[in-house]
Structure formats: structure tokens, C-alpha cells
């Protein structure tokens, strides 16, 4: 009788103890998992996320004991994580700024090392039905920059079937994106973006939204081109020749908005990280750069 009356209390107490024990065990296990394994953590560019993913998958076949964890978020996110020392490698589709290098030095006491692992041309995408063929830097700036005068497609003397409102729907990237900063620096010449652009969270989302929106224009890495959207040629000035974002035009630097793709590490890479980066720069790694739609660094040419 007495035992029966007491049992709920005893049971509850036992449950609490059990829960606490489980929790403690779980925490300890988690701690071991992150510190002990030979894992490489990479974070950063959304432009490069497909490429980085392809590398990680292929590298599993080369070195099965090393697990490479990959995540996107934008070049700025990767660089911020590197400065905190939270990842070993940051991928970035823009150059790291000097003040960011300083921050990393202050936080971790190590110098940041840069590896150029490929090139990307920033393609300008429009809807398939859009008759536009060529666009100049000046026009792009007038469309995208604060105070720019181009807001309607008829300003460009273009009419698009299916685009009734005629407003140029600007599709851009969120401000943590390396693509966003590269575009602002090189096309808008550091002017600010016009407010009201649709700021997508990924390179692929830009292309997908352009595909669905007749009035749209957007910029994104050349690797995201699909047959469902149109990539237009870009000219630096009104009378200059216009180029399409192809591998040859990127390597010859004829295409005006091409950029280097980087990996950044804290200090000289060592052990597993060094092997991984060496492999990425080897022909096997560079083949994946071509396969995912980007331009490889020429073998033999040292990274910038």
C-alpha cells in the first residue's frame, strides 16, 4: 500500500534523473564528435555552393576518412565565420577586404591565405521572350543604381510579350552575397542599389525567378544558366564590342564582369586541409570546375 502511494513520486524522480543523464551523455557525445574527427568545415559563397558540393562529394572517393562539411549563406557569411574561427575554409566569390583580413588577424592571430580556384563570369539573365540581345554597363547602372533613370522596358525601346506592366523587375541578391558586392563595385561603381529590387537568397533563385517573370532582369553566376532563360551579351561602352559569358571570353578577360573564385584559410593550410586544397587545384579538382559551369584556373599558373 505504502509503496503504491509513493510510486508516482519515485517514478517522476527517476524520470528526471534519467533525462538529466541522457542529456549529459548526449552533450558529451556531441562535443567529442565535433572536436575529435578529421572533418573540414567550409562555408560561404552561394555562387560556389554547387562547385564546393561537387568537390566534397568527389573527395569522399579520394579520401574517405576525411569528411568535408559544406554550407552556403553568401561570401560575407563565410568570411565572417572565418574571422570568428568557426570554419577552416571560407569560399568567396569576391576578394576579401583588407579590413576583414585585419579583423581575422586580431581575432585569431593568424594571417589569411588566399587560393584562387576558378573564375566565374557574372551573366545577365532575362526572360526567354525578351528580345534584348546586348546591354551596356551604363544601362545596367541606370537600371540598378539608386537614382538611375531606366525603370520601364520601353525606355530601352523594348516590348516583351507577357509583360503588361512594362516595369523592369530588378532581381538582385541579399547584401551578404559576394555577387551583390561584386556587381555593386564593378557595374554600379560603388553607388547604392535602387530600393525595391527583389533580393534573392541564392544564385539559383535569381535564375528561377527570371524564368517565371517576363518583365525581369537579373544577375547571377554563369554556372546557373539553363535553357529556360536567356543570357545576354554585355558591352563595356555603347560602341564597344559585346561579349557573351563563355569560358574563352572569361579566360581572355574580354567579358567585362568576370571574377576570381577564392578559398580562404587561416594561416598556411596544414594536414587534411592542405591535402584538400592541393587536390582542388589538381586536374581532378579543376575538372569539376568545368563540369559545374565555371572556368578553371590554368594549370601551372600560380593562384593570384
Amino acid at each position, binding site marked *: 500500500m*505504502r509503496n503504491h502511494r*509513493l510510486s508516482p*513520486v*519515485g517514478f*517522476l*524522480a527517476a524520470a*528526471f534523473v534519467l533525462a538529466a543523464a541522457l542529456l549529459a551523455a548526449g552533450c558529451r557525445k556531441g562535443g567529442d564528435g565535433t572536436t575529435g574527427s578529421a572533418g573540414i568545415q567550409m562555408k560561404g559563397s552561394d555562387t560556389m555552393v554547387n562547385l564546393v558540393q561537387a568537390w566534397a562529394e568527389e573527395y569522399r572517393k579520394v579520401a574517405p576518412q576525411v569528411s568535408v562539411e559544406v554550407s552556403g*549563406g*553568401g561570401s*560575407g*557569411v563565410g568570411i*565572417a565565420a572565418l*574571422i*570568428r574561427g568557426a570554419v577552416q575554409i571560407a569560399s568567396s566569390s569576391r576578394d576579401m577586404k583588407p579590413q*576583414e583580413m585585419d*579583423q581575422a588577424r586580431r581575432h585569431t592571430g593568424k594571417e589569411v591565405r588566399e587560393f584562387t580556384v576558378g573564375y566565374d563570369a557574372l551573366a545577365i539573365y532575362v526572360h526567354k521572350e525578351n528580345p534584348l540581345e546586348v546591354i551596356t554597363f551604363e544601362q545596367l547602372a541606370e537600371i540598378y543604381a539608386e537614382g538611375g533613370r531606366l525603370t520601364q522596358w520601353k525606355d530601352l525601346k523594348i516590348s516583351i510579350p507577357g*509583360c*503588361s*506592366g512594362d*516595369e523592369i*523587375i530588378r532581381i538582385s541578391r*541579399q*547584401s*551578404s552575397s559576394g555577387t551583390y*558586392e561584386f556587381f*555593386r*563595385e564593378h557595374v554600379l561603381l*560603388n*553607388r*547604392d542599389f535602387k*530600393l*525595391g*529590387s*527583389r*533580393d*534573392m*537568397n541564392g544564385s539559383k*533563385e535569381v535564375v528561377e*525567378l527570371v524564368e*517565371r*517573370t*517576363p*518583365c*525581369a532582369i537579373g544577375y547571377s553566376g554563369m554556372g546557373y544558366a539553363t535553357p529556360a532563360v536567356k543570357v545576354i551579351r554585355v558591352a563595356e561602352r555603347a560602341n564597344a564590342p559585346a561579349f557573351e559569358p563563355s569560358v574563352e571570353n572569361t579566360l581572355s578577360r574580354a567579358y567585362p564582369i568576370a571574377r576570381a573564385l577564392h578559398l580562404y584559410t587561416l594561416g598556411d593550410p596544414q594536414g587534411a586541409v592542405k591535402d584538400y586544397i592541393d587536390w582542388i587545384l589538381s586536374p581532378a579538382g579543376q575538372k569539376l570546375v568545368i563540369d559545374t559551369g565555371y572556368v578553371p584556373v590554368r594549370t601551372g599558373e600560380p593562384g593570384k
Partner: protein
Amino acid sequence: MRHYPTMGRLHREAMRMTDTPTSKPTAVARPQRPLWAIWGEKALELLIRFAGVSAIIFVMSIFFFIFREAAPVLESDRFSLGRFLGSVEWYPTSATNVRYGILALIVGTAWVSGLAVLIAVPFSLGSAIFISEFCGPRLKEALKVVIELLAAVPSVVWGFIGLTVTSRLIVEYAGATVGVNVLNGGLILALMCIPIITSIAEDALKAVPDSYREAALALGATRWQIVYRVLLPAAKTGLLAAVLLGVGRAIGETMAVLMSTGHAVQIPHGLLDSVRTLTANIAAELGEAPAKSEHYRVLFMTGVFLFIITFLVNLAADITVRGVRKQK
């Protein structure tokens, strides 16, 4: 430091509470319980008490933390509270002229959550009334299970549906130039709120004693009259709580609106314009903002602002509910 006296008081209270029941049995000369049971009970009571009070501690410390992260920006030259709340220019990472104005984001949040609540409330109150009063027991069970399932759909899945399914439908049938807009965000958010409001409202209706229904029936009221004249007034408090929980969800939801509203900083001129909400802005930008930088602090200031809004909504709810109770 500050919570020690509270804990002490609590402890004393817990002791006093546990003392009284143990002293009684001895007076009636019942067999003494083993020592471990007494102490176990005391410890458990203390634990449960702490769990209850911890909610207050957590809320206080969250607010304290957010405000501590945000506060230093108030002294910055580039930040003024007036421009923060009154300007639409949001250029946190500008290379030439950094400006922090969240008016467009506030308006965006208001439009999207307002639309969501407008769509969700009639639908969910209607379905709650149907489930509780009009449908048969078998259908009732099926509907309740389905609605609970609907409430368990993760918000990122809703966002994906907004991005791929409803946005296309809106382009096709509403003639919008871009599918990701206020209407899309509002629809998705309404779909997310409906199961929550419905299940809480249904509980509130169920809590109305059957004697009310029987009395109304005896007086010759029709089913509709019972709902309209008896149940709704009787369950007023619970229904209000359901709606306000829905509003809270609508304002606080992040991932789904981030994906379905188009994320454009502008004051919308209609339902078919893209907007950006306060929560989506924090989610999209906090990851890149270097810790302790000005941008980071301004985002935390946005968090403080959101916190105050939610607090006011809850306060309003509390006051109305109290008012309703007093009237009874």
C-alpha cells in the same frame, strides 16, 4: 546577481509548503514516510517551481541580452532613432553612405501579417464552429487529426510552397508581374495560422458547458442561434486568445515570409507588390554582419523593436481578456 534573493524566497516558500503536509500525518499518527520520499518530493517541487518561474527569467534575460547588444548604436553618429523608424532607406552595407531606416520593413510586416490575419480568422473560426458544433463524430475525429498534421508542417516547407506553387498561381490568375508579393506571403502565412487558430478556438468552444446548449435548445433556439447567441459570447475569451496567438505567429514568422514575399525594400502600393518584413531582414542579414559591428547592432535594435511590438500585442490581449472577464 539579481536572481539570488528571488531564489531564496522561493526556497523558503517551497520549504514552508512542504512542511505543512508532512506535519499533518504525524498529528494523525500515520506511519512516517521514508526520508528519501520526503526529500525527493521536496526536490521535485522545487524543480517544478523553478521551471515555472524560469519562463520569467528567460524572457527578462532575452530582452536584456538583445538590448545590451543593440544599445551602443544609439550613440553612433550615423544612427538616429527618428530616421531608424521614419525612413525607408535601408542601406546597411553601402560603400558610400550607410543609412538605417526600417519604415519599409515595418510597413511590409504590417501588410503581410494584416492580410494573413484577415484571411485566417474567418476561415479558422468557421472551421472551429463546424468541427465543434455541426459535424458528426467520425468526421470530427478525421478533421482534427488532419488539422493537427497541418499545424506540424515546417515553415520552410510552407515557404517552398509559396515560392513554387502559389506564386505561379498568383501570376496566372491575379495578373501579377512577380509572383512573390504581399498576397503570396499573406496567403502562405494565413495557411500557417489557420490550424493553430482553429484548434485553439475549437478547444474554447468545447469548453462551453453542454448545459448552455441544452438550455438554449429547450428554449427553442435553432442551431445557428445557439452558435451566434450562446456559444460565441460564452467562448469569447478563448476565441480572442486563439486569434491573438495567430497574430503573434503571423508577426513572428520568418522563413516562410522570407521565401514568399520577394524580399524587396519598398512601401507596397498594392497586394501585388513585393515587400520585406522585419523578421526576414534579420534572418537574411545577421549571418553576414560582423559581430559587434554597427550593422549587427542595428539588426538587434530591429529585434528590440519586434520584441516591443509582440509585448504590446500580448498586453492588449491580456487587457481585453480581463475586460471581458469583468463584464461577465
